[in-house]
């Protein structure tokens, strides 16, 4: 009923019947693990050069195993393009970096350098994110038709900076407005062939749903800080902090209580945000998906918060198990290497300390790399894939037949945005 009328034929050919629910993930999770583990090992020995190939493999896997109305998506990007994009980004950023460093030394802007470089990097980062999105969209093919993105990345970067500043100044209260505004910008420039997208999610509805969560996270912080400011005798406190341990005994109870409240208030948002993050994520995804439109096509999501929590619990389980196993293996390795080294260098030799510290340093660095790559692999396999799967399978699409007669449009864009995002450490998927 979706596509057969296209040629007015199909009688002789049995169509692949779409199952209930329009989006399915059909990939083999074990194959994904294999891909990621092999990729992590290669990242380690190539000091990261392999990432262009790994990222391309990951996208190919996710795209080609995601089936919409019986047809899988196709990712046509190549590692070679990503590498080229990265090289171009380096060619742009290295001279900028050098110029900035020299300027800082010559003009003596050391105090502002941090702020200035942060602002510049953020601006560049948003620019890169928008351009990278364009690259990914133009490499996404569905039924022989390309997606693409219009709009100026520079304008987006300024727009995004403006909204992020407002958002931070308002302690996150403006988040719904920002998210809706930025998403409208992105989606009205997004196309599947000649079918234009738009975003109709309202900031108000997100605000209503998220306000309670904001109160839980931020209100204790504000209240705690304000309370502590009124009760702490700051002069006495500063004097005590300078004077050492004995001086604390002379402080009055109010000041001590105020300090405890202040510390608790500062820690609270971090803990609350960690615990509530899956709720937030599920809420944002549902809101975002439900706001997406492509012509007549609209989407809703049946994503449940509990499902997102389960993903994170699994993630922590895997991380825990991995940490124990890797910890045991790395300390055994350290023992073996140290044992072997004593065959060559006697503990009484004058350079024994040096050898031991070099071995210790190398093992520590290696352990750090192994752990970091291990965690990121687990994250990719459990959280990224888990969310991708959950979200895509939770989708309900109405007026889906509008996707059957879309005309091709758009041309592939360069991967410079991806390269910039990579060089700036802001790369996404």
């Amino acid at each position, binding site marked *: 009923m979706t596509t057969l009328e296209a040629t007015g034929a199909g009688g002789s050919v049995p169509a692949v019947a779409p199952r209930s629910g329009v989006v399915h993930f059909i990939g083999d999770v074990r194959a994904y693990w294999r891909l990621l583990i092999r990729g992590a090992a290669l990242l380690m020995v190539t000091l990261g050069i392999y990432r262009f190939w790994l990222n391309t493999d990951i996208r190919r896997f996710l795209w080609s195993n995601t089936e919409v109305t019986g*047809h899988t998506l196709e990712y046509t990007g190549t590692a070679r393009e990503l590498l080229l994009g990265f090289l171009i980004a380096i060619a742009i950023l290295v001279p900028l970096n050098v110029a900035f460093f020299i300027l800082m030394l010559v003009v003596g802007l050391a105090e502002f350098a941090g702020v200035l470089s942060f602002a510049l990097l953020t601006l560049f980062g948003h620019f890169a994110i928008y351009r990278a999105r364009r690259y990914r969209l133009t490499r996404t093919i569905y039924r022989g038709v390309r997606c693409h993105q219009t709009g100026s990345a520079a304008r987006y970067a300024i727009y995004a900076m403006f909204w992020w500043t407002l958002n931070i100044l308002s302690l996150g209260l403006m988040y719904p407005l920002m998210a809706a505004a930025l998403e409208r910008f992105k989606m009205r420039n997004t196309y599947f062939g000649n079918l234009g997208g738009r975003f109709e999610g309202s900031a108000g509805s997100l605000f209503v749903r998220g306000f309670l969560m904001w109160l839980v996270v931020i209100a204790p912080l504000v209240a705690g800080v304000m309370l502590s400011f009124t009760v702490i005798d700051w002069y006495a406190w500063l004097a005590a902090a300078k004077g050492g341990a004995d001086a604390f005994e002379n402080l009055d109870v109010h000041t001590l209580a105020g300090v405890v409240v202040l510390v608790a208030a500062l820690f609270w948002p971090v803990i609350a945000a960690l615990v509530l993050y899956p709720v937030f994520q599920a809420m944002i995804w549902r809101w975002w998906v439900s706001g997406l439109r492509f012509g007549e096509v609209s989407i809703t999501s049946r994503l449940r918060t509990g499902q997102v929590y389960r993903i994170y619990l699994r993630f922590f389980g895997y991380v825990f198990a991995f940490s124990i196993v890797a910890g045991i293996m790395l300390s055994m390795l350290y023992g073996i290497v140290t044992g072997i080294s004593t065959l060559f260098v006697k503990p009484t030799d004058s350079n024994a300390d040096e050898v031991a510290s070099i071995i210790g340093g190398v093992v520590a660095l290696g352990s750090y790399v192994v752990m970091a790559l291990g965690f990121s692999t687990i994250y990719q396999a459990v959280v990224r894939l888990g969310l991708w799967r959950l979200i895509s399978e939770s989708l309900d699409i109405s007026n889906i037949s509008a996707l059957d007669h879309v005309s091709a449009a758009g041309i592939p864009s360069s991967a410079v945005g991806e390269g910039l995002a990579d060089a700036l450490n802001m790369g996404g998927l």
Partner: protein
Amino acid sequence: MTTVGTAVYFDGKTSARHDVRVEVTPAALRVLSPEGAVVAEWGYDEIEPLSSPDHVLRIGKRNNPSLERLEVHDPQLATAIDDLSVPVDRSGLTERRGRRKVIGWSIAATASLFMMAVFGVPEIANRLAPFMPYGFDRKLGEAVDAQVRGSLDPRGGGGEFECGNADAEKPGRAAFDKMVGQLARAAGLPFQLRVVVIRKSDANAFALPGGYIYVHQGLVQKSERPDELAGVIAHEIGHVANRDGTRSALQAAGLSFLFGMLLGDFVGGGAVILATNAILKNSYSRDVEADADAYAVKLMAKVGGDPRALGTILQRIVGTHSGVRILLDHPETKDRVTAINLMTPPGPVRPLLDPKEWAALRRVCGQ
């Protein structure tokens, strides 16, 4: 031999699905509409395999601006196409061969970069440092100094962090400045030295580019004679005069370009932090230390002090304290002491400070 089967075809002009019949003839792959009209005819060498799920063969035409796609679900048909077309290789052999090449060369590139980092970067930094203007040392020193103070003195004590500002400490400061003044005049550097004692209990001292030298209170207390302290300061002046900090900053910058960029790291202010870390933590090489020792011996001889005193305090610190890193980040203390003694010219020596001044200097941090 012609294999016939069904497949799904997209013409690249619209998203409409076309259920088609496919004929795999020896000459070409023919795509036929149900009515029997030829929709497409591809030579086997023109076919391009595209990414798809495992159970589907997705192919297109190479160098085709339009995104024509043929999706074959029928395993027999897919095998027939695979057999005839060279570019289509469902066993993944071609892919693996290409990938092995990538991996091999990436590892080779990594090895090259690593060798470059270990041998090339220090060499380049050594060659480049003499060409840097002294203004660079000064500016670099200022930037790093701010960082160092931040990390050594997190509470921002400022004047209290440095010894010699309180009234009781003023005579000590005067004696210290007298000692430093003698060394500085003899050194004759093109910029001013800025030597201070700071309230840190470990026996240590370190130099930043551009003439910033920090002497820890612990070192003053460990010194038994003025010339021992002066020897260490002369050693640090040697680092400044040899521009070792600038060299190591150049080295750090080179390393951050090599690895930071490759690993996708780009932070403008990070260069300063890197340089700070490099100067604070990076162990100077044995040659750099030996050069600074030689400089110290010459300088001490020039002001008439005892160059051997440097060796004496080195031995004492190493003997009693293992946490000394920057001053003594090198195991061969014995060799250094021997070298210092060998370099020392014969002749009478006279302490840089008289006993009264030395007693005052010992109290530069109070008590």
